[in-house]
């Protein structure tokens, strides 16, 4: 059953429309991420769900109740902000208790809930501290506790990890996900970090220029991008231009070299140009065996990335990057060396709109 139902949502600021007819149905207990670059409209949609922005058109329904025109205080929606937004004049306990006090809960209930929340975020001993006495990670945990203390029906997370350093970001995202699963709270998470979106979400909404480019599970979005934008934004991808030789049989030419796609190229005729995508991890060195295609080129650059070595190979006019595991015992080609690349036909994706 749909818990959050967003229909034809639009937002304009003067003549500029930043969200175009956005629609999304979120199930109860689902974790959905809005992923996209700055200015794509993801935060605006989140703020419309929270009630901080008024929708220019469309509707938002939460658990069967339309909330489109309700003020934020009446929506029972918890929000965690990028800048933590803890009240600087209050201690951690007072921050967590704020929403409960506003709701006029009894002092015993408030004290018990605050203690429960502090245990939940694994910071039981910081009740008396002020926000400025906490690290960024601790502040964000407290902000999370404050948001869920009032038992909101929806939890909104607006880039909550962006201000934290890399290590804390990884540990906190795991904590947020496990907390969300334990509490079963329907959550919408806004991020521009694809790794966060892919690792935490049940579904990802990839956004671009105020529109949802693709909605799907992390696996679908990563492996089967529907548009050129999704292909380029989610993960590192080789975007190549190919010429259609035989659309029905999926025969294409990349820099004059014939390859065979796994599927027919719909809506294109021979001689048309299409965009194809190839993940770096799907490409290996060596000649093609059955069910695989090959391309030939010269190594242009070798970049050491730690566990992975990224090698850029120039074909005729285009380049293809491939990722190889860093194994000291295995020799990798050097710059200027001619190489043959191969990949499975299933991995060659013909991208719509290309």
């Amino acid at each position, binding site marked *: 059953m749909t818990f959050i139902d967003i229909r034809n949502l639009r937002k304009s600021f003067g003549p500029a429309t930043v969200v175009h007819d956005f629609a999304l149905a979120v199930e109860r207990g689902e974790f959905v991420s809005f992923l996209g670059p700055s200015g794509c409209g993801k935060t605006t949609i989140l703020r419309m769900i929270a009630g901080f922005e008024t929708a220019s058109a469309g509707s938002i329904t939460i658990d069967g109740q339309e909330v489109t025109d309700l003020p*934020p205080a009446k929506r029972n929606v*918890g929000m965690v902000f990028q800048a933590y937004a803890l*009240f*600087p*004049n209050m201690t951690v306990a007072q921050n967590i208790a704020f929403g409960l006090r506003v709701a006029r809960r009894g002092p015993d209930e408030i004290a018990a809930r605050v203690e429960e929340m502090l245990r939940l975020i694994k910071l039981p001993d910081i009740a008396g501290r002020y926000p400025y006495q906490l690290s960024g990670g601790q502040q964000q945990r407290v902000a999370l506790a*404050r948001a869920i203390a009032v038992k909101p029906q929806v939890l*909104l997370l607006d880039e909550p990890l962006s201000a934290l350093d890399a290590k804390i970001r990884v540990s906190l995202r795991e904590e947020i996900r496990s907390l969300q699963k334990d509490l079963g709270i329907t959550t919408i998470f806004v991020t521009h970090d694809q790794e966060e979106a892919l690792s935490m979400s049940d579904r990802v909404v990839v956004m671009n220029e105020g529109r949802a480019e693709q909605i799907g599970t992390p696996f679908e979005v990563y492996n089967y991008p529907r548009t050129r934008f999704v292909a380029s934004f989610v993960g590192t991808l080789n975007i190549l231009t190919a010429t259609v030789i035989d659309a029905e049989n999926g025969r294409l030419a990349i820099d004059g070299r014939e390859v065979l796609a796994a599927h027919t190229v719909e809506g294109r005729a021979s001689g048309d140009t299409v965009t194809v995508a190839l993940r770096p991890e799907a490409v290996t060195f060596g000649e093609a065996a059955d069910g695989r295609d090959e391309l030939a080129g010269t190594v242009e650059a070798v970049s050491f990335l730690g566990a992975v070595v990224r090698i850029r190979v120039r074909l005729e006019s285009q380049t293809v990057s491939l990722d190889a595991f860093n194994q000291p015992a295995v020799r990798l080609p050097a710059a200027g060396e001619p190489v043959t690349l191969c990949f499975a036909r299933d991995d060659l994706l013909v991208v719509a709109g290309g």
Partner: protein
Amino acid sequence: MKASRIGPWIAVTLGALYFLVPLIGTFEFSLRMRRGTYSFDAYRIVLGDPNFQASFLYSVVLALATIVVGTLLVVPTAYWVQLRLPKLRPLVEFVTLLPLVIPAIVIVFGYLRLYNSQSILPLTDSSRGTDLLLTFGYVTLALPYLYRSVDTGLRAIDVRTLTEAAESLGASWSTILFKVIFPNIRSAILSGAFLTFAIVIGEFTFASLLNRPAFGPYLQLVGANRAYEPAALAIIAFVVTWACMGLIQVFGAARGPTQPK
């Protein structure tokens, strides 16, 4: 001493002399009431004068009323401008600066014309009404200082996010203002309040033309009729003002729970 430092030192010394010599002279003169020896007689007479006590108390009460009314007017206005009407900021800043360019005597004649006994709102008909009018007049005079202090305080915190965080937790506007905004700009409000206090304590024009028994007209009256007491009063007025400035520094520099790491 390096040659490059001599210039600034000369400037500082000249400035200090310009400020301190008259002050030291006034203080020295205020101690000369008893012939041939220094004494605090002038201070004893001034502080023991019932008119001094009454006028000082009157001005203190009015200063406190001005601070309360001014704060209740300025904080929500500055907050609203920052949160929802940022485009209005230049206009509001201009309006709050007007009391600096319009002489107090012009303002008070305007008041007398608007609120005299023949007007729709005859505030000058009664003492209480005139006290109220004087308070509002002082709020106007203090507006440039109070607004700037509060606005600076609001700029130092993330007003929008704090407001939204409180809203998402179900807080009403009054709860947000009194539980979140006011406490977080406390030192800014106090700075504005002490400046307001210092202005009101020594104000003469409004109180004199509205015929109220404030400290400013008392200073003028004593100054016109006595020799040593006015000097003592001037020093007392300086001490009160300096105390206010000192308190601004104390509250401004205090590391409270609202300060970030």
